[in-house]
């Protein structure tokens, strides 16, 4: 199996620069480390790839750890038996299977809850119906994230929600569950589609239209000192497509003759772009210009893309960033298409978007070469059309730099609180008899200051270039997730992990007795806990991908030796490993 794995690496590498020699650090089956071995030095050389399962062969720890790391990068966490399946099957085949699973959408959950609430199912909510209404989109998020089979799609969509940011801190969005569930569904539906569809979908999304205020954005009326709203026009360039500066394909800055970065646009460009996004308003039956009040049971208004009111659209010529002239007098939606084309085809999009996606899924500091390889996949150089998300994801996950053999001192990322807690719930079998996984997210926000679709602003929870003072900054590295890791939250999440494990049902916060609160089920680990070493070894696979340091193992082992009760031993082992830096950081 080891040679099979290396064959698969070589296969992937064959598409890249053949001179590539990686600072590899392979771990062999016995756990002994080899360092500095070039790719061509290992393997049996025939280059074939087995298509399917190796019947009857048990998987090695190495393969389990490799599968576990892949699961940790590409999903919200998988249980041991699922990791074993991936290890048996080959990751790339498993990923192709995942690509083919239809999306598990969030809106149907909202529909169900809204309908049942309207039918009076939860009497106690009648006094304060908002209590439920404002968290329905969160209930949907947790329900589907906990149970959906399209586990990669759910994780990728979540990463996309940190690139195309809308937030339930905007009160209208919080009060209209269909707005955010539909927005998220847009990300889910296009997570394995094309970036252009994502960009256009986001631009016309009613949730975004409200959030960045280009819904009901009117053409200029200079006589009355009224001009198009520039909010979305600015952020669609700065955040959702091309970024502030011209980039090389490897994500590094292009510099002018004076060594200065080259801005991609100026304020005049923003004003031109603002004209493009005039005339859009909410769709749905009985639509009208200027609508700003919504019935939360009205599914249409926040599910359908925004529509164009031509008489509100800026009619004149627009000149966009690359000098593309959008002619006067054409239909407004043609203007939108033209602007999306200009942005989508800008050479920055590949490196700008792909680098951030790598940061969310794999490592905070991808090498320029890694960014370039993924950006080339985005650009259509691996045989797929430009913007193809599957090509991008394959390039991200199966890059040699993402693989377990390439560990380095600076590799990896601090797991964001959402990922840490959801994966805890998924890996350790949080279950409910009713099948309900509804969570208001109260604990997560309280302890860790993060919740999906709840960013404080359009700039997400952290900036992609945030660099903590000290060693990381001194090495010109970044670590975005540390921006929300303060003296408050670092203790907060430690306590939250404790609650989730020792109190057994405290990870979810929901409205009792209307909804069942899921509970942890550690029985599969309690079976192992009679031998602390077995327990630690298993936890090392599922939680730290074989990267638990010997010193940490020793400390945990010493503690477990003082605990007789098997259940307590299990809980303590899981808790200590989860709160350790070894597990907080995925490296």
């Amino acid at each position: 199996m080891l040679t099979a794995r290396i064959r698969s690496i070589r296969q992937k590498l064959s598409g890249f620069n053949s001179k590539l020699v990686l600072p590899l650090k392979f771990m062999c089956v016995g756990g002994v480390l080899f360092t500095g071995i070039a790719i061509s030095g290992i393997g049996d050389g025939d280059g074939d790839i087995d298509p399917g399962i190796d019947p009857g062969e048990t998987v090695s720890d190495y393969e389990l750890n490799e599968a576990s790391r892949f699961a940790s990068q590409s999903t919200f966490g998988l249980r041991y038996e699922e990791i074993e399946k991936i290890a048996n099957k080959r990751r790339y085949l498993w990923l192709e299977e995942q690509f083919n699973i239809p999306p598990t959408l969030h809106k149907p959950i909202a529909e169900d809850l809204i309908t049942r609430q309207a039918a009076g199912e939860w009497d106690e909510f009648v006094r304060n119906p908002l209590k439920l209404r404002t968290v329905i989109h969160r209930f949907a998020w947790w329900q589907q994230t906990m149970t959906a089979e399209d586990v990669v799609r759910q994780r990728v969509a979540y990463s996309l929600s940190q690139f195309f940011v809308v937030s339930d801190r905007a009160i209208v969005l919080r009060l209209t569950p269909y707005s955010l569930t539909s927005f998220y569904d847009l990300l889910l539906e296009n997570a394995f589609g094309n970036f252009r569809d994502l960009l256009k979908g986001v631009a016309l999304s009613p949730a975004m239209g409200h959030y960045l205020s280009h819904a009901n954005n009117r053409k200029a009326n200079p006589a009355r000192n009224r001009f198009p709203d520039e909010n979305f026009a600015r952020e669609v360039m700065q955040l959702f497509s091309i970024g502030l500066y011209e980039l090389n394909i490897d994500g590094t800055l292009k510099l002018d003759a004076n060594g200065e970065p080259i801005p991609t646009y100026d304020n005049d460009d923003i004003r031109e772009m603002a004209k493009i996004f005039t005339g859009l308003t909410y769709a749905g039956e009985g639509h009208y210009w200027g609508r700003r009040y919504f019935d939360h049971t009205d599914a249409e208004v926040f599910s359908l893309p925004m529509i164009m009111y031509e008489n509100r659209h800026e009619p004149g010529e627009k000149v966009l960033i690359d000098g593309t002239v959008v002619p006067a007098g054409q239909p407004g939606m043609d203007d939108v298409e033209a602007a999306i084309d200009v942005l989508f085809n800008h050479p920055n999009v590949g490196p700008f978007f792909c680098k951030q996606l790598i940061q969310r899924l794999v490592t905070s500091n991808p090498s320029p070469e890694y960014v370039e390889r993924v950006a080339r996949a985005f650009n259509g150089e691996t045989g797929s059309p430009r913007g193809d998300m599957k090509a991008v994801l394959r390039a991200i996950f199966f890059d040699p730099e993402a693989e377990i053999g390439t560990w380095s001192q600076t590799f990896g990322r601090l797991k964001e609180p959402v990922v840490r807690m959801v994966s805890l719930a998924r890996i350790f079998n949080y279950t409910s008899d009713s099948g309900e996984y509804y969570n208001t997210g109260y604990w997560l926000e309280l302890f860790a200051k993060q919740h999906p679709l709840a960013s404080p602003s359009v700039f997400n929870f952290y900036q992609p270039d945030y660099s903590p003072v000290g060693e990381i900054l001194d090495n010109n590295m970044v670590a975005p997730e540390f921006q929300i890791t303060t003296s408050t939250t670092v203790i907060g999440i430690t306590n939250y992990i404790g609650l989730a494990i020792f109190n057994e049902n405290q990870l979810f916060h929901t409205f009792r007795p209307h909804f069942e609160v899921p509970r942890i089920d550690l029985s599969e680990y309690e079976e192992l806990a009679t031998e602390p070493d077995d327990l630690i070894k298993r936890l090392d696979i599922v939680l730290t991908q074989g990267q638990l340091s010997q010193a940490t193992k020793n400390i945990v082992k010493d503690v477990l030796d003082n605990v007789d009760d098997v259940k307590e031993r299990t809980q303590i082992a899981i808790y200590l490993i989860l709160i350790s830096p070894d597990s907080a950081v995925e490296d």
Partner: protein
Amino acid sequence: MLNRRRFLTHSCGLGVAAATASTTALTLGLTRSVAASTTDGYKALVCILLAGGNDSYNMLLPYDHDQYDEYEKIRSDLALDYGSLLPLSKLSSEGRSYALHSGMEAVRQIYEAGDLAFVANVGTMIEPVDAKSIRAKTAKLPIGLFSHSDQIAQWQSAISYHRSSSYGWGGRMADLLDPNPATGLSMNISLAGTNLFQTGAKVSPFTITNRGDGANTVWSFPEFRSNGINLHDVIRDLLGVEEENMLRREYSRRLKGAMDNRDKFVNAIRSTPEFVTEFSDNNFSTTLKQIARVIGARRVLGQGRQTFFVQYGGWDHHFNVVGYQESMLPILSNGLGEFRSALQELGEFDNVVTFTISDFGRTLTSNGQGSDHGWGGHHLVMGSAVNGGSMYGTYPELSGSSPLDVGRGIYIPTTSVEQYFAELALWLGVAPSDLDEVLPAVRNFYSPESRDAPLGFLV
């Protein structure tokens, strides 16, 4: 100078001895007033970030009829009713009269009592510029003007000519004034998490919340106690592991630092007596209350200089600016009133200066629903040390053809953030000769050797 620096570092919080030595330093030819350069006694700055870009032309408005008419014409559907405004009794130095938004009665009263000043039309700049040079694209302008992410950073870093600043001017002040506090607790305390303003090369903010005693401890669980295990000891062992990975090391440092600081902080804050002042039940007021509690504990904490950072967000009103400000400006105003009252109870109002910052001002013209990103904006500074009841800087004469207007009613700032911050930094105790370190571009707008105050609202 080096000696002086070292001296300042060590003198902080040492009371009488420090005062004596500091006076000696002054007699050695240092030119600033005593107020600006001693580090005896206690002083704190409270920075309130109105995140999103407050539309301050609807917070502080012209009240003379000719100027109000211009205001009304330019702002069209965003203009506030003249009759609703709260006029300020004192005229500006140009003889102009101004008024506040109707929701800011508390601020009006503090202003009239002489404990609050306005600083008009402040913004980020690299050098003084005019509309002509901007149109000709010859002007040196801040990077990412009108962009949230850049401008919110530049107000905190006071560096607008590049994007790679990892430090804020509050952090740089702490690097100078108290880089290695004896208590181990940073002089920079944040109520809003990680922030650029309070981050220095040596000093990072200590983050607390407005809940409970502000800092939580790592909870133990019965499963540890019943087995005779001291969880905190175990965690300290885990965090003592020499990790090979850079990110793991950083995580260890953060968790260990938080645990170490928590106990001394909580013990201190519990020593502050209950306030008679009642704080409103909203996030902003409870945050200011928590700050007042920390200030009340400053002797126990052994801190002679502090900065606090508060974020009150949600001011990016492209939509419904008039409606949102109607609910948000009173929260700001009442919170300040309550904070002042609590500080007076503690006898610390003389020692604390509270000031606002924001991403930018906003377009005077409307987008039909709200206002867009602008540049210069108006700010307020509160404290009994403040020469209050006055306006500093220059409130622009509003006009459709104002020479300051760079389009859409975006006015070029007439006061730079450097001038604004220099006044605050000098007051806190930064020596004039160290001002370049705190505000690297200060000389484009103010000479630290000058005997004049940067703006005059404090010194």
